[in-house]
């Protein structure tokens, strides 16, 4: 096909026109092969300019378009739309940035003009090698798999389920509700935890769009955003396995507690009346806080930060629930003495300090302490510690409650492996971006919520569940097709030798290995078009659409001339 390249130079008012001798640029471009028209225009991004371009593309019967104007971040999209409106494939267009990266940064007009000529020539060289690219549309399944039936998983399910969207909720235990079912009250409202969780469980049980699988584990989840194939196994039934398709997956596998066995100095498991926070919650929920001998304790020590050093992070919620424990105790056992051994009080956010201020005092004491150790002395529990001046001290108590660090659930690694997402070094699921994509993972369509993502309280877990729902509801709309990135990588079947280098460097798991053909295959729905695999591929089998070797080569040629 004959090429007809049209080149249009934007004066951008005086911004380009005053700094660059546009007529000189035009003269330099006119002799170039395939260039059929070179024109200047006052302001191409204006309504008038766009109309002019649309007319020109048709009138000149252009096959390729080069515009020399501002930065692509400003108006690449604008001009691509112009192309679309004039039935020119928008990828047969190249924008030469002669404003930000030439006119505005070059003092000497002659130099700027020369540079502009090179920039536009590079664009012309490049556009010659552009090919039409088409948007793809892919059918998607709006249904969602939620793994984990704790409060986060339940909340996500409730937010997501609707008449046109089914939710499959998979819980490994026999009942729903997770950790919250062990709590009597939630901080800070000190409202009934069972009210909260039972209402939600009831809602979920009566929601016909949510299919619940208890005693079940996910065995397989293969696919990509919009199209995952899931297989689950019923643990209470040898042969029971179920398969279904979903478009997105929410991981709400929750947390477990650091085992204080690992730090013998707390005497956990050896000394009577030394409990973990969860054991204490359960005891409290059962209605009676008692010692082994059946009597109520007269004094209780709460040890914060158990396992913090070992884990290397602050578990965020222990200070607050320790305060809640103090409330339980003071409310239930008259004249009880509660002592909190803490290192740094972590009570962030607007309402926590007030809760602390209201809890502290009377019989609730706070001691900043280090090197806490629990021994049995005179048939009583003795807490030995160093105070803030590093002075050794000790204190007796009838009962010790340990606040251990929050760890990812035991099956987190397995779930991560099955779903192909990564874990941070602490074992929590890794978010796509710590700051601006905390719910997403590097696999599009898989979201992480609640304590599976990191230690957090009920409110933040619920927010994350709602956030995951937001992500899914906004991107996976029933009946709407998915439009994946156009400028993706592709791997030539005839050149790939199957060294898997590309697979190792892809951050998104967008490349899989075809075992039958022994070659790598790009899943264009997942690929985000960074081009890392292209540079990694020694065979030259991988290439990036719209960023091909010969396209860049043309730019290089012009740059070195």
């Amino acid at each position: 096909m004959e090429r007809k390249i049209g080149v249009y130079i934007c004066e951008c008012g005086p911004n380009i026109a005053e700094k660059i001798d546009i007529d000189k640029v035009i003269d330099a471009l006119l002799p170039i092969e395939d260039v059929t028209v070179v024109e200047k225009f006052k302001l191409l991004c204006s309504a008038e300019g766009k109309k002019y371009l649309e007319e020109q593309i048709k009138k000149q019967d252009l096959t390729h378009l080069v515009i020399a104007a501002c930065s692509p971040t400003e108006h690449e999209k604008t001009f691509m739309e112009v192309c679309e409106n004039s039935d020119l494939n928008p990828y047969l267009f190249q924008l030469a940035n002669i404003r930000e990266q030439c006119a505005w940064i070059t003092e000497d007009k002659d130099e700027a003009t020369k540079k502009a000529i090179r920039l536009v020539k590079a664009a012309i060289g490049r556009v010659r090698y552009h090919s039409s690219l088409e948007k793809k549309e892919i059918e998607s399944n709006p249904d969602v798999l939620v793994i984990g039936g704790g409060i986060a998983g339940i909340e996500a399910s409730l937010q997501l389920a609707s008449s046109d969207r089914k939710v499959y909720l998979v819980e490994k235990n026999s009942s729903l509700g997770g950790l919250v079912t062990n709590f009597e009250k939630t901080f800070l409202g000190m409202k009934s935890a069972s009210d909260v969780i039972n209402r939600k469980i009831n809602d979920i049980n009566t929601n016909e769009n949510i299919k619940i699988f208890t005693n079940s584990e996910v065995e397989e989840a293969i696919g990509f955003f919009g199209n995952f194939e899931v297989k689950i196994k019923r643990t209470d039934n040898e042969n029971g396995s179920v398969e279904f398709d979903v478009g997105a997956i929410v991981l709400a596998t929750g947390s477990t507690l650091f085992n204080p066995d690992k730090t013998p100095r707390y005497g956990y498991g050896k000394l009577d009346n030394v409990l973990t926070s969860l054991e204490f919650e359960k005891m409290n929920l059962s209605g009676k806080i008692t010692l082994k001998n059946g009597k109520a304790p007269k004094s209780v020590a709460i040890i914060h930060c158990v396992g913090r050093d070992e884990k290397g992070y602050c578990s965020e919620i222990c200070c607050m629930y320790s305060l809640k424990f103090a409330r339980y105790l003071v409310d239930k056992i008259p004249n009880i003495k509660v002592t909190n051994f803490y290192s740094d009080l972590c009570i962030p956010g607007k309402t926590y300090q007030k809760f602390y201020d209201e809890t502290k005092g009377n019989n609730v004491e706070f001691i900043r302490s280090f090197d806490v150790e629990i021994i049995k002395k005179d048939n009583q529990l003795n807490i030995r510690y160093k105070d803030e001046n590093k002075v050794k001290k000790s204190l007796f108590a009838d009962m010790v409650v340990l606040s251990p660090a929050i760890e990812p659930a035991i099956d987190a690694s397995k779930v991560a492996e099955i779903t192909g997402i990564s874990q941070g070094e602490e074992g929590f699921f890794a978010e796509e971006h710590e700051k601006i994509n905390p719910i997403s993972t590097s696999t599009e369509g898989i979201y992480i919520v609640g304590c599976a993502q990191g230690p957090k309280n009920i409110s933040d877990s619920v927010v994350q569940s709602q956030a995951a729902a937001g992500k899914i509801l906004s991107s996976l709309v029933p009946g709407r097709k998915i439009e994946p990135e156009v400028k993706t990588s592709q791997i030539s079947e005839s050149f790939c030798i199957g060294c898997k280098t590309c697979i190792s460097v892809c951050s998104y798991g967008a490349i899989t290995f075809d075992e039958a053909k022994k070659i790598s295959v790009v899943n264009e729905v997942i690929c985000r078009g960074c081009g890392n695999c292209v540079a990694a591929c020694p065979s030259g089998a991988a290439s990036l659409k719209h960023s091909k070797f010969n396209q860049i080569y043309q730019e290089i040629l012009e740059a070195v001339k």
Partner: protein
Amino acid sequence: MAEKFEPRIVGFLCNWCSYAGADLAGTSKLKVPASLIPIRVMCSSRVDPVLIETAFLEGADGVLVAGCHPGDCHYDEGNYYTRRRFAVLKKVIEGLGLESDRLRLSWVSASEGQRFADVVNEFNDKIKKMGPSPVKKNKSL
């Protein structure tokens, strides 16, 4: 030298950080030498070392690869791979006794318009001192 030496520098700039930083240098009306011709790539990890070698062997007086600062990559980790590849390339060039100083890797963020200008100025000065690439006139390459 009779003719004034105007270096030819190829600048591979990643779309998200360095190209934006270069744009900001423009918006801020900073002075940047005209010797650098920017080539926009989505990620610095797209910059195949063979592309750099090509530019070098085509006679570029300098090649700049600029990307997001480590940890800031829009694609999470692309620039870490860029850095390793660049290091290997630099060793190859250096090992062959060629002028590896003609290659430069710099991290420029989207807010670092000034840094972009500084980097290009510095590099341009350096290349000017080095003189034209001997590769350019060598007919055997």
